[in-house]
C-alpha cells in the first residue's frame, strides 16, 4: 500500500457529500441557470429539426408543390444558425463552470493547507495532498459541468420528443414509447453492475500504480536480493486481475448498449407497423410516420450518455469526498477571536499591535501526544533565558523535534503552557511568533525562482542591499557572485541547480535577513565538502549569537559551544547543563560525546587530503 493508491470512501451515492460540495458551486448559480437555458434551447432545436422533414414531406411532397419553399429554407437556416450559436454559447458557459469550480475548489484547498497544523502534514503524504489538489479538483469541475450538459440535453430531448409525439398523435406516441418501461428497468439493472465493476477497476488500477512505484524505487534493492521473479509474479497477479475486471466492465457495457438499441428498434417497428396502417387509412400523414420513425431512433440516443453520467458521478463523488475531507479538516492550532481581533490572522496581520519579543521561553507542565497511549512528552518543564543557545541531543523518536515544534507553536501542548516572555503564546497570534523565528532545516528547502527571491522570502520588505548584507554575513556572497547572473541566478525546482552546501548557506541568509529573535537549527548530517563545511560552521556561529536558539545538533563543535545541552530520552530531559558539567557527570552525554569524538576524528583523518 502506498500513496499512489486511492481509497474510495463510500459505496453508494451520498447526499451529504453533494450538499457539502454544493456550497462551493453557489458562486456559479447564474452560470448554471444560463447553461440550463442553453441546453433546453439546444434540445428544443434538436427536437424541431425532424419536424422540418415532416413538413417537407407533408406540404411539398404530399401536395406536389414548391410553394412557400423559400420561407421553408429560410426557417431551416435560421434553426441551424440558432443551433450552432447555442452550441458555441453552451460550450463556453460549461467551460466557465468547469474552470470556475476547479479554480474555486483549488483556491479553498490551498488556503486550508496554509492553515492546517504540522500534525496534519506529519500524517498526510505530499503525494496524497497533491492528488487532491490536482486530479480530484479537475475531476469534480469537469464531471459536474459536462455531466450537467449531457443530463439536461438528454432529458430535455427525451421529454421534448415525447411531448411532440403526443401532441401530434397521442395513440401512435403511446404505442411507440410503450417500450420505455422496459428500458428503465434494464438501465437501472445495468447501471448498478457497471458502477460496481468500474469501481473495482479503479481500485486495482491504483494498486498497479503503487506497484510500479515500489518496483522502480526498490529496483536496486531488488537486484541485490534477487527478488525479480517473485516481484514480477506478484505484479502479474495484479495485472491479471485488472485484465479480468476490465474485460468484465467492457463486456457489461457491450451488452447494455445493444439491448438499449434493440429496445429502441422495437419502438421503431411498432411505429412502422401501426403508423403504416394509419397512413394507409389516412389517419395520419406520411410525414408523421417518418417523424415518428426518426424520433424512435433519436429518443434512445441520450440513454448512453445518461448511463455514463451516473458512473462518472460516482467518480466525482469519491473525489469530492476526499477533497472535502481535506478542506473540512479543522486546524489543531487556531488563534482565538480575541487574539485575531487584536493581532490579525495569518493572512491579514495587525502588526501595529504586536508586542516586541524579548526571547524568554518557558515550558510549564507540558504534555503532548497524538494518541493518549503513546505519550511523547509528559509534564515537561523547561526554562530558557533570552539569548541562550540550547542544543538538543537524543535518539530518533526521543522527542527533541517535538520540543522544538512546540516552542515554535507548530504543535500546541495537549495540556500545560508554553510561555514566551512570560505570556502564554496562545494569547498572541501565530503569525506574531512565526514572524520572529528564523528556521534552518536539515535538508534546506528552496523555492523555484532566483537566489534573491529565496533570500527575500525571509523578509519581504528587505532591500537589495539587505539581501547582500545577509548573504555576506553567512559567507554566501562569494559563491553567489561566481554565478554568471549573481543574485538573479535561477535555483531550479527545489533548488536543484545548487549543491547541498550552497542551499544551506542560502537558507541561512534567508533566516537571518528578518533579524529573528528566535532561531531554530536542525543541523544537517549530510557531508558537504570541507571548504563549504567550514563556511557553514562559521555562519552558524554568527547566526546564533544574541538569539534564543534551539539546535537539534549532530556536530560536536556545534553541541560543545551551546550554552545548554539537553539530553532527551523518551520525552524526558535526562541530562541538562553545559559541555563541561555534563562531561564531568560521565553519563549519557559523556558516552555519546567520546564515541562521536573518535568517530569525527577518524572521518577527519580518513578524508584529509
Amino acid at each position, binding site marked *: *500500500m502506498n500513496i499512489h493508491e486511492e481509497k474510495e470512501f463510500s459505496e453508494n451515492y451520498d447526499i451529504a457529500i453533494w450538499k457539502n460540495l454544493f456550497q462551493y458551486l453557489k458562486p456559479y448559480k447564474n452560470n448554471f441557470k444560463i447553461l440550463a437555458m442553453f441546453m433546453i434551447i439546444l434540445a428544443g432545436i434538436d427536437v424541431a*429539426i425532424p419536424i422540418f422533414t415532416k413538413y*417537407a*414531406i407533408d406540404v*411539398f*411532397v404530399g401536395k406536389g408543390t414548391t410553394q412557400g419553399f423559400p420561407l421553408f429554407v429560410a426557417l431551416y437556416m435560421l434553426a*441551424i444558425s440558432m443551433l*450552432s450559436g447555442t452550441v*458555441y454559447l453552451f*460550450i*463556453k458557459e460549461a467551460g466557465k463552470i*468547469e474552470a470556475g469550480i*476547479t*479554480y474555486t475548489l483549488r*483556491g479553498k484547498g*490551498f488556503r486550508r493547507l*496554509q492553515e492546517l497544523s504540522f500534525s496534519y502534514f506529519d500524517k498526510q503524504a505530499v503525494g496524497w495532498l497533491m492528488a487532491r489538489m490536482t486530479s480530484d479538483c479537475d475531476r469534480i469541475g469537469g464531471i459536474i459541468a459536462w455531466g450537467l450538459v449531457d443530463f439536461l440535453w438528454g432529458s430535455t430531448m427525451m421529454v421534448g420528443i415525447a411531448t411532440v409525439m403526443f401532441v401530434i398523435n397521442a395513440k401512435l406516441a403511446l404505442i411507440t414509447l410503450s417500450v420505455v418501461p422496459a428500458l428503465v428497468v434494464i438501465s437501472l439493472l445495468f447501471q448498478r453492475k457497471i458502477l460496481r465493476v468500474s469501481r473495482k477497476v479503479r481500485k486495482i488500477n491504483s494498486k498497479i*500504480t503503487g506497484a510500479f*512505484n515500489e518496483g*522502480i524505487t526498490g*529496483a*536496486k*534493492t531488488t*537486484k541485490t*536480493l*534477487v*527478488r*525479480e521473479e517473485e516481484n*514480477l509474479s506478484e*505484479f502479474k497477479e495484479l*495485472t491479471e486481475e485488472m*485484465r479480468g475486471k*476490465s*474485460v468484465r466492465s467492457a*463486456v457489461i457495457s*457491450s451488452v447494455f*448498449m*445493444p439491448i438499449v*438499441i*434493440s429496445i429502441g428498434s422495437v419502438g421503431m417497428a411498432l411505429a412502422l407497423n401501426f403508423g*403504416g396502417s394509419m397512413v*394507409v387509412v389516412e389517419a395520419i400523414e*406520411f410525414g408523421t410516420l417518418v417523424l415518428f420513425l426518426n424520433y424512435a431512433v433519436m429518443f434512445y440516443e441520450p440513454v448512453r450518455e445518461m448511463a455514463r453520467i451516473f458512473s462518472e458521478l460516482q467518480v466525482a463523488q469519491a473525489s469530492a469526498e476526499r477533497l472535502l475531507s481535506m478542506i473540512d479538516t479543522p486546524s489543531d492550532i487556531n488563534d482565538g477571536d480575541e487574539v485575531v481581533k487584536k493581532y490579525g490572522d*495569518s493572512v*491579514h496581520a495587525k502588526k501595529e499591535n504586536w508586542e516586541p519579543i524579548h526571547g524568554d521561553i518557558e515550558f510549564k507542565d507540558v504534555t503532548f501526544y497524538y494518541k493518549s497511549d503513546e505519550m511523547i512528552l509528559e509534564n515537561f518543564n523547561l526554562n530558557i533565558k533570552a539569548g541562550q543557545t540550547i542544543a538538543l541531543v537524543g535518539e530518533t523518536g526521543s522527542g527533541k523535534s517535538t520540543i522544538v515544534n512546540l516552542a*515554535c507553536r507548530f504543535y500546541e501542548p495537549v495540556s500545560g503552557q508554553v510561555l514566551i516572555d512570560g505570556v502564554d503564546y496562545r494569547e498572541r497570534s501565530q*503569525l506574531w511568533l512565526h514572524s520572529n*523565528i528564523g*528556521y534552518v532545516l536539515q535538508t534546506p*528547502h528552496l523555492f*523555484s525562482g532566483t537566489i534573491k527571491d529565496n533570500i527575500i*522570502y525571509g523578509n*519581504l520588505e528587505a532591500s537589495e542591499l539587505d539581501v547582500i548584507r545577509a548573504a555576506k554575513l553567512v559567507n554566501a556572497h562569494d559563491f553567489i557572485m561566481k554565478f554568471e547572473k549573481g543574485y538573479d541566478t535561477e535555483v531550479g*525546482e*527545489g533548488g536543484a541547480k545548487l549543491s547541498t552546501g550552497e542551499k544551506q548557506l542560502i*537558507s541561512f541568509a534567508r533566516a537571518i535577513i528578518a533579524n529573528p529573535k528566535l532561531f531554530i537549527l536542525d543541523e544537517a548530517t549530510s557531508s558537504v565538502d570541507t571548504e563549504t563545511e567550514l563556511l557553514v560552521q562559521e555562519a552558524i556561529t554568527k547566526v546564533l549569537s544574541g538569539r534564543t536558539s534551539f539546535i537539534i545538533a549532530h556536530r560536536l563543535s556545534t553541541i560543545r559551544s551551546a550554552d545548554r545541552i539537553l539530553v532527551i530520552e523518551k520525552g524526558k530531559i535526562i541530562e541538562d547543563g553545559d559541555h563541561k558539567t555534563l*562531561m564531568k557527570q560521565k553519563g549519557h552525554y559523556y558516552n555519546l560525546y567520546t564515541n562521536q569524538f573518535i*568517530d569525527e576524528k577518524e572521518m577527519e*583523518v580518513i578524508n584529509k*587530503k
Partner: protein
Amino acid sequence: MKRLKVILDYMKGNVVKYISANIATIVAVLASLMVPLVIRSTIDSVIGLSPLEGGNFVNQLFIKLGGKETLLDKLWIPGLLVVGLTVSRGYFLYLKGRWASEASETIAKRLRNRLYGHLQELSYDYHVSAETGDLIQRCTSDVDRIRTFLGSQMVEIGSSLSMVIFTSIIMISLNVKLGLIALAIVPVIFIYSYYFFNKIQKTFKVVEEAEGAMSTTIQENLTGVRVVRAFGRQSYEIDKFDEKNLAMKESVLKLLRLFAQYWSTSDILCLSQSMLVLCIGTVWTVKGYITLGTLVAFTSYIGMLLWPVRQLGRILTDMSKAFVAIDRTQEILSVSSEMETSGDNFDKIQGEIEFNNVTFGYDKERDILKNLSFKIHPGETIAILGPTGAGKSTLVHLMARLYDVEQGEIKIDGKNIKVFDKKHLREHVGLILQEPFLYAKTIKNNIKIAKVDADDTNIEDAAKTAVIHDKILEFHEGYETLVGERGVSLSGGQKQRMAIARRVITEAPILIFDDSLSAVDTETDAAIRRRLNNKSKDLTTIIISHRVSTLSEADRIMVLEDGHITQLGNHETLVKNEGLYKRIWTIQSAYNEAEIV
C-alpha cells in the same frame, strides 16, 4: 512504419481477435445501414404506390415475402425486419466490444508485465539516475493511452471508415446525383476537423504548462511547509498560488473557447449538408425524380455519415498521441536488459574472491579503481577503509556484478564472475546497501523477502542476529507491523538492521556490508558482528567501515585510497607501518580522556 511493427508486436497472439472485432464492426455497420432501406421500401412500395422492382434486394425480399398485398396487411413483417436487423447489429456490437476489450486488455496486461519485468532487469546504473515520476507516468498513463487506442479507437477507425464507405456506396446507388451532393461537404468537414485537432495541440501545450507551473507551486508549498510557516508567509504563498491558479483557469477557458468554435462550426457544416439534401431532395421528389422513400432514406443516411466523419478528425489526432505514448514505452523497453550479459553457470559458491588487475570507471575519462589485484579466502573477514570517493562502494558493487569490468577480471571460486548466472551470483554474494529500501509489507514479509519459504523461527533468528528482534516486539503488532509510507517509519539504523536481517536469512556464503552499519551505534555494530561470527565460521565477510573497533577485529584490513590499495594486512602488521590505518588507530590512544573533555 516502425511504430506499426511495434503495434503488431504488441498485438501478437491477439491479431485474430482484432480482425474478428473489426469484421464484427463492419457487419454491425451493414446491419444498421439496412434499416433505412427497409423503411424506404416499406414507405414507397408497401404503403406507397411504387412497384416493388429493381435490383434492390430489400425489394426482392419483399416480393418473396408475398409482395405489397400481403405486407400491407402484415406491416409487422417489415417491423420485425427492422428489429431483427437491429438485434443482429447489437449482437455484433457486443461481439466487437467483447473481442476488442479482450484483445486490448490482454495487450495492456502484457505490456505492463513487460515493462515491470524489464525495469527490474535494467542495469543498476540505469536506476541510479532514473526519474521515478517520469517512469511511473510512462508505465501507467502511457500504457492506458495505448490501451484505449487499441481497444476502442483503432476499432472506431474501422467502423467510421466502413460507415463512410458503405453509406456513400448506398447513397450513390440509390441516386447518383443526390448521393454526390450528400457527399460534397464530407471532405471539407474531414479536413476542417483534422486541421482543428492539429492546431489545438498548441493550446493543449499551454494548458499543460500552466498546469505544470501550478503543480510545482503546490508541491513546493507542501514540501516546504515548514519554511512557509516558520516565516509566516501564508499570505504571500496564497498570492503566488492564486496567480498560477488563475493562469490555469484562463488557459482552460481559452481551450474551451476553441472547442466551442470547432463544434459550432462543424455543426453548421453538417446541418447545412443535411439541409441541402432535404431541400434538393424535396424539390426532386416533388418533381418526381426520386421517390419519397429515397428522400427519407437519404435523410437517415446523411445523419449516419456526418458523425463518423467528425470523429475521424479526432481519432487521427488521438492516434498521434498514442504514437507518442508508444514511443515513450518503447524507450524503456529498448534499453537492453542486464540479463543479456548473464552467464549460465550455477555452481555452488564457496566464497573465494579474487581481483586480477581490475581497472574500472563509470565514464571513460576517470578511472575509479586502478589496477587492483587481491584475493580473499573463504571464511575470511576483510574490512575496507578509505576516504569518501576512494572507490570502496564501487569495489563491492563489482563483486555482485552490478557493474561489469572491462579491464582485468574478477574471479569467484577461481571462475570469472561473468560465467555465473547473474541472479545465482547475487543470491550468493550477499550485498547489503547503505541506504536500504524496505517494501510496503509487514516486517515479517520484509525479512523473508529473499527467502520466501522461511518459517517463523528462521525469521526471528535473522532478526536476533541483526539485533532488531527486541525493537520489533515493541511495536503493537510485532512482526505483523506494516512498514513504509502507510506503516511505521523506522530510523536509519533500524532500517539498516532490517536490511541485515533479510540478507542474513538467505545464508549467502559471502556477506558484504557497504557501509551498512553506519547508522547503527558502535555497540550494536559489535553485537551484530559477534552474532554473525557465531553463526557460521565459513562466512566470507567484507565490511566497509571507518570504525576502528570494526576494522581491528577483521582478519585483514584493506586500505583503499584514490583507487589504489595502499595497505593490505592484519591489524598487527598495519599498526606497525605508517599509513592511514595507523593514523586512525592512534586517534584512540592519542586523544586520551582529558583531551576529549
